[in-house]
């Protein structure tokens, strides 16, 4: 089991979600975050005050998956989120000690297997 954490462009979120659902990845959590990934900051102006926006809006996806789902999930996100420009984001794969499904108390593999 792995926890896949992906940081993607907000405007690519719909594409990523659509692709993930097609790939049968059904359990995920997203949050709106801000970050800096080496992209060129854009400058904004407010009444004579110029600011460089060093943090860009991003979306973080957190997906707990069983082992045989790890690579397909990563490939899906890379394909859907890529624009080729700096700032497309990152994918991090973390080990998971335990997973529980709250509703049933199932753990580990059973907890991340979708119920049909």
């Amino acid at each position, binding site marked *: 089991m792995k926890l896949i954490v992906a940081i993607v462009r907000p*405007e690519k979120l719909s594409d990523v979600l659509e692709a993930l659902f097609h790939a049968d990845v059904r359990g995920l959590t997203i949050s709106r975050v*801000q970050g800096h990934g080496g992209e060129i900051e854009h400058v*904004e102006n*407010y009444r004579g005050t*110029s*600011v460089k*926006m060093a943090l860009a809006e991003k979306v973080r996806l957190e997906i707990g998956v069983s082992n045989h789902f790890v690579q397909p999930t990563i490939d899906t996100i890379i394909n859907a989120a890529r624009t080729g420009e700096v700032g497309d984001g990152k994918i991090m794969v973390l080990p998971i000690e335990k997973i529980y499904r709250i509703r049933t108390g199932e753990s580990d593999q059973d907890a991340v297997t979708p119920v049909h």
Partner: protein
Amino acid sequence: MNNADIAWMLVATALVLLMTPALAFFYGGLVRSKNALNTMMMSFVALGPVAVVWALVGYSLAFAPGGPAIGSLAFAGLRGVGLEAQGTIPHLLFMCFQGTFAIITPALISGAVVERMRFNAYLAFITLWVVLVYAPVAHWVWGGGFLASMGALDFAGGAVVHVNAASAALVAALVVGPRKDYGRHAILPHNVPFAMLGAGLLWFGWFGFNAGSALSAGTTASLAFANTLLAPAATLATWTLIDLLRGGPVTAVGAATAIVVGLVVVTPAAGYISPASAIAMGAIGAFPSYFALIYRAKTKLDDSLDVVAAHGLGGATGAILTGVFAEAAWSGGPNGLMGGNPGQVLTQLASVAIVLAYSGAMTFTLLKLLALVMPLRIGARDEGVGVDVTDHGEEAYTHGDGAILVKPKETSVARSAVDAVAVSSGGQL
């Protein structure tokens, strides 16, 4: 001159001017947050260049004595437009009142091209459009042009303002092309309360638009005022009823839209019909727009904020129904179909068709010529980022986190945050 008339027309002019910021809120609420400022600016900016070219040449082309197709340059630069009487009010005040109409009409078009049209191309477009399209059409109906001679009835601008803007909107949506996400992803309104605020303020301002079009403070203004209250009320009631009968919920965006549709429908008729007819017109007028909205979303036509369904169909329905319901007993003017004058319906139809054709053809030509000089739309990547950042360098809802102050002397600012001040305390922007 009559001081009561002057007092009312001063107020009415200010009321109509308020409609342009109101439209900014109506449209601004209906787009995604990354395009909120751009969409609102598309309306707001009309208050600048459009008003200036109106004063310099537009007013003259529309209202200076001329031929059946266009006025003349006799009033160019406001020459000869002073405090002398024009009817019962000063000529200058009449020019201002007409100017507020000239400002909002091009702003209406923006609803068809939001979220992807390049701002400088839009700016050039509306500035030229108000001179080349709005001014002649206003002349045809209100400046003694050929539609007036034909006997076409357009009390406050059903054809001049709404059909005119909607025809341009249809062509602009086709020429500029759909948003890259249109039909692929759900594109949702980011602030429905803004849209409702806008609709409310539009209604408020529309009392100036319609009752002010009486150009006096008398009984005609009172009739137009009553009809401006009753027709949108009937449209809203009917819209709600259609929602319920179709088994759906009564939506807020729908209600805001219904109010605008009702106002558009009654605009050409406001001073010509009885209050009972206004209720009938408002109710009938709900149907074409209601179903056109549903149909349009299933098509490839990305008229993003439904200018055609709301203003085009509403305006055309209103203009044609004016020919049905016009009552000499109320207005002292001509009768319509109900008063035994079926010919009026045909005159109304002809006026709609003529405005539609002229506005569409001119808008097409204008946009194609502009496209030779500058790109009309932003790139796909910029569309993803949003027009607020790409074309205005601002965001509607920034919290200032990670905003690094660019110091005046530094031309190339260091990339590290160490030698720069992060403006995160708020209120400093």
